[in-house]
């Protein structure tokens, strides 16, 4: 009886193994799902960071979307122009010019520059602080608790002197910070050159009111528009037309930045040449 039990136990396991292997093997063939070879090829080329900068869940989703739904090819900011060119080759289409998008913080107010700051003892996030009145006089500027730094997976944002500052050596341009900022002062900007000029202020109030809340806010003096044709004034705020931005304007832009009385126009970035 003893040996029969052992034999039966062994037999049960072997039989189960054989039956289950057979079923799974059959299922593997019967339920086989064709995966497009293009999807696999594109998946290999994509950086695999799964950052979500392309508005898809991950690189795999984006690869499928390119093949199945004709999603735009240049959406991967991490892979950059090289990546787009390879994908275009696989898909057999022309790649449009691909410019890396990087976040730019439209505020230049360090702690000493901000006026009307009151003590705040609530939850230490920008989202919470932004809802409390009279903590910071400027209702457009950076709050400095680093919601953006919190969502950055690449450690590229530091809070320096109460102002979020981007480390362009580390940034890959996934755009998570732009989505996280409760005041929407981070925009994804095309870096057509290694360094670009940007208006580091988001205050849409009139000059006098800006003067009362910040030492470095845009007061709509229009000095910049006189020196460079890229500048225009929208909602009491100087803006740069990045569609026509190129190296030829560099001198004009430098001049405009020099002439700005509040030094709002700053030169940002120093991209690595990873791509």
């Amino acid at each position, binding site marked *: *009886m003893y040996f*029969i*039990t052992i034999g*039966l*136990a062994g*037999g*049960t*396991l072997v039989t*189960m*193994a054989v039956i*289950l292997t057979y*079923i*799974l093997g059959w*299922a*593997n063939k019967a*339920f*086989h*799902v064709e995966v497009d070879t293009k999807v696999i090829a594109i998946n290999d080329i994509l950086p695999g960071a799964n950052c979500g900068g392309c508005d898809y869940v991950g690189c795999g989703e984006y690869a499928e979307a390119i093949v199945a739904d004709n999603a735009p090819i240049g959406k991967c900011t991490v892979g950059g122009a090289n990546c787009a060119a390879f994908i275009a080759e696989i898909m057999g289409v022309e790649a449009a010019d691909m410019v890396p998008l990087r976040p730019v913080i439209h505020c230049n107010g360090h702690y000493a520059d901000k006026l009307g700051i009151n003590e705040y003892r609530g*939850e*230490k*996030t920008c*989202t*919470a602080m932004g809802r409390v009145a009279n903590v910071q006089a400027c209702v457009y500027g950076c709050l400095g608790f680093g919601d953006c730094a919190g969502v950055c997976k690449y450690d590229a944002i530091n809070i320096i002197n109460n102002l979020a500052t981007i480390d362009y050596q580390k940034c890959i341009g996934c755009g998570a910070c732009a989505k996280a900022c409760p005041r929407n002062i981070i925009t994804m900007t095309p870096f057509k050159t290694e360094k670009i000029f940007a208006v580091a202020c988001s205050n849409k109030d009139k000059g006098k009111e800006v003067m009362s809340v910040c030492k470095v806010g845009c007061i709509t003096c229009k000095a910049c528009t006189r020196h460079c044709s890229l500048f225009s004034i929208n909602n009491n705020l100087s803006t740069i037309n990045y569609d026509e931005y190129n190296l030829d304007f560099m001198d004009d832009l430098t001049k405009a930045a020099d002439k700005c009385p509040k030094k709002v126009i700053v030169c940002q970035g120093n991209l690595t040449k990873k791509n």
Partner: protein
Amino acid sequence: MNYIADIFLIAISATLINNFVLYYFVGICPFIGVSKNVSMAVGMGCAVTFVMTIAAFLSWTITKFILIPGAPVSSFIAGIFLPAEQAAHIDLTILSYIVYIFAISSSVQFVEMYVRKFFPALYKSFGVFLPLITTNCAILFACLTIMSHVAGVDNPADAWDLAKSLILAIFGGVGFTIAIVIMAGIREELDFCDIPKAFQGAAITLIVAGILAMAFMGFTGVDSGLGNMIKTSDTTAVNAIPVETNHQQIKV
């Protein structure tokens, strides 16, 4: 009536009172790992419930027909070599762990392939969770609980049938879903809290889980109370069964 009351009590017990996660502390890895936001927690809960039900069906079938002493398949094969009364005592329950793991992992694989082929949308929403729970201890725990109620009972009439096993699995899964969704909700709020540095991350999560488990201890005894209520309201035949022993039996 007594049978329906039993099933009702098994369901309540598995969901709230003897919650798999908060009472027995099985399935802690997904409970901590996938409870960062509510939508993912719901996905994980559904996947666990789904797999647990399938696993319960398989484990009940295997236990009933192969493993327990006197099971039809094993005693028939042993009967070829042995006299009938010896063949009826062949006990293969020692194989339970390995057989259940076999059955669970291969059925999950099978279900994954099937869902991928015929329900691509469902496959996408389950995502990585389905293969993740292949070796989840909560599933194995459900199987072993069912085994203890099929093989470990003195009186064969007390042994659970398939319906009770499935009810245990489904509502065990529902209990898991409730626990993980509550946990995810709390953790979403925790992001806004000013937590001391030493407690941040895993530490505060475990503390919250402990407090949650203590809160669920408040349900203890609800099953025996409910059992009393349901069974005394029933007529004479049911009253003959002492409530205490019923409670023992129902306690998962």
